[in-house]
């Protein structure tokens, strides 16, 4: 699997993603600076990392979405290259129009930094295949703007197409307002595009890839990407 990780000024999870990808694939990903106007040939996966690109100016992800490299990311995504956006990466992908909806300030206005439980919904994508439908996984979150918004019509479309990948849940898999950490509509923590080739999620799978880090629930996602894209 040939992977690239985009690096923006203010990215801070780019190396974590690179470590996770290398651990699964045995091959270090290419680190791509935001000013690049071309991406290497033959990429299988582009990862857009978490952090605070451009200091979250204007809106989280708004500036990064219009950076030179994102034009190429969009072109590659249209060709079916898999794109994974985590946290700020998810915000960037919605701002760039690669994923529907928007991420707003958390309902209680607090920065939330802790492990959360997620219920896996769609397991038909290269990212989520190793999980079983309804499985509960534990991933860390660390965000201020993770409150997923879509209006009623868009929400209906996202749900109808099975584009919800993960929902905030309790340890037992209950999905309710009490388990909705940030006010996201329908507890949505991660979604895919219509083709299932672009995944955006607020929680960080790359932060729990081995027991030494406190858990390994994120590891299967990277292993599965390597398996599907090699």
């Amino acid at each position, binding site marked *: 699997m040939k992977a690239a990780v985009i690096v923006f000024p203010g990215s801070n999870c780019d190396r974590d993603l690179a470590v996770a990808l290398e651990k699964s694939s045995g091959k270090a990903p290419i680190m791509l600076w935001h000013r690049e106007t071309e991406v290497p040939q033959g990429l299988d996966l582009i990862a857009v990392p978490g952090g605070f690109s451009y200091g979250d100016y204007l809106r989280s992800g708004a500036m990064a979405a219009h950076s030179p490299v994102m034009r190429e990311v969009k072109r590659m995504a249209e060709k079916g290259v898999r794109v994974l956006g985590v946290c700020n990466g998810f915000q960037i992908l919605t701002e760039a129009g690669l994923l529907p909806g*928007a991420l707003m300030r*958390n309902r209680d206005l607090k920065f939330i930094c802790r492990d959360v439980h997620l219920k896996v919904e769609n397991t038909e994508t290269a990212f989520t295949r190793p999980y079983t439908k309804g499985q509960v996984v534990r991933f860390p979150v660390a965000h201020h703007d993770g409150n997923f918004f879509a209006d009623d019509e868009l929400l209906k479309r996202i749900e109808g197409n099975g584009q919800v990948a993960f929902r905030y849940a309790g340890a037992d898999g209950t999905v309710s307002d009490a388990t909705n950490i940030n006010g996201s509509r329908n507890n949505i923590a991660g979604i895919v595009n219509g083709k299932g080739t672009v995944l955006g999620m607020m929680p960080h799978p790359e932060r729990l890839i081995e027991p030494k880090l406190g858990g390994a629930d994120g590891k299967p996602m990277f292993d599965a990407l390597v398996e599907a894209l090699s």
Partner: protein
Amino acid sequence: MKAKVHVTLKNGVLDPQGKAIQHALGSLGFSGVDDVRQGKYIELDLAETDAAKAREAVERMCKELLANTVIENYAISIEG
């Protein structure tokens, strides 16, 4: 020319910051504030001298960057 842009959350989009401001006003003793919506104000100095063209350009700026039309509305005023 000068363009003034107000970006506000659409109706129906929860504005937690507006709500927090409303509560703070209440606790300061300002009663009767039924709702607060917070937004952004952006001023642009433009080289363009034609008001219609300026408005058209700012309209595009709003759609492409200044506002996220999934959640926000924008209002533009052009001043000579």
